């Protein structure tokens, strides 16, 4: 996995299959991930994650070089990686609403 990556996407460890968004990015924007241009299909807010490459269902999600859960559905490269397609190997994650489309967190 060589090639350039958008500086707004943070790779915490070489082993990671997700990147952290360091500034909010709108749906429709194009970002460079390991040399490939990828169209964002959803808004990605600061601190959220996108897939660095296609991740099949059942594969571990790796961030900080450590497994942080498992994919519950196939995830395309560049797609939002979150509670809708990842589950914990320990305890289920509690959330109040559909966080994929949550508004700006001003509630």
């Amino acid at each position, binding site marked *: 996995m060589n090639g350039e990556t958008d500086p707004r996407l943070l790779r915490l460890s070489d082993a990671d299959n997700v990147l952290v968004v360091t500034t909010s990015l709108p749906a429709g924007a194009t970002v460079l991930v390991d040399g490939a241009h990828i169209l964002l299909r959803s808004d990605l807010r600061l*601190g959220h994650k996108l897939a660095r490459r296609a991740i099949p269902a059942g594969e571990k999600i790796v*961030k900080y070089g450590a497994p942080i859960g498992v994919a519950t559905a196939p995830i395309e490269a560049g797609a939002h990686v979150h509670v809708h397609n990842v589950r914990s190997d*320990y*305890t289920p994650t509690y959330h109040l609403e559909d*966080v994929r489309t949550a508004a700006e967190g001003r509630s």
Partner: protein
Amino acid sequence: MTRGYLRADGRKGIRNTIVVAYLVECAHHVAREIVIPFRDRDVHLIGFPGCYPNAYAQAMMERLCTHPNVGGALLVSLGCESFNKFRLAEVVRASGRPVRTIVIQGNGGTRKSVAEGRAWVAEVRAELDRLETVPMRVDEWIIGTVCGGSDGTSGITGNPAAGRAFDLLIAEGAACIFEETGELIGCEHILASRAATEELGQELEASIAKAARYYATLGYGSFAAGNAEGGLTTIEEKSMGAYAKSGAAPISGLIKPGDIPPRGGLYLLDVVPDGEVRFGFPNINDNAEIAELIACGAHAVLFITGRGSVVGSAIAPVIKICANPDTYRRLADDMDVDAGRILEGKGTLEEVGREIRDFVLALADGRRTRSEELGHQEFILTYKTFEPIGPACLPAA
């Protein structure tokens, strides 16, 4: 060299606070009324709401009322609660601090108890205000850290910056405590590999396994809805970010609430109760964890937040480190350190870590945190059960 208030047990405090402690919820109002006229004069309200006895709560109150930042304690009892007020008063008296117990039922009720309490506080306040400070070395400090209102930025800016500050303070001889074993689930192996001894490594792993079992029984991880909205997906992910607060020093010991680190170094505070699940969630909110860090002797607490917590604490200053640059802009008034600027290329982890270290030590030279200036003195204490720590948990003498 910083300066502190020397207590009879040899420990030094960076604040000279009087605590007014209610010993059951029924005495809470009277205690609060006593504090109100002194709210800007380092008189803090703490207490335990339960009417049934609990060894953990008793030990916590004893530690808190004899904390080095505390110069005196007023105990407010209704009269019929089970809390052992006699023992608490004796512990405070033996520590060389002024102490007084007001029993509302024996004292003519609310009005007379409030008046008597205020008179005692005024007198002790005047006495404590005359106390001079003495030099205090960095190796006499204990600093705790907690994160709350975490989001996807906490683990990449604020928490690792706090970890750098811990590394600096530990190198200077301080004792630093990180906590919430329920937020280290998934990190147990890397944690154990940093232990000073193999036996301690096993204890660390066991403490995380206990937390995982405990939370599995409850059906929820130590994970709030706002964590998910902020981009955190699983407890393991939150854990990896929280783990970064511990910095890079070897882990010297594993302590439980009320245990005071015997010397400098890095300690993990095990906050999850022992035995069967009995009284509910280990810590029902961030302030319960802060109170436990303070009961372990922490002079100050580093609080890293992404979503934007505004809390402080009774007894010890809470330095709020904001991990998220957007949150910082919204809540700058409540934040002491802007760690989110790292994401904007305006600072490095090393620079922010150094800033946090400097902020901590400046607290002993009159610097106040935002939450202190705003009057935040949150406090909560609930029921728990703990067994004593094992022999492998502390560094050898």
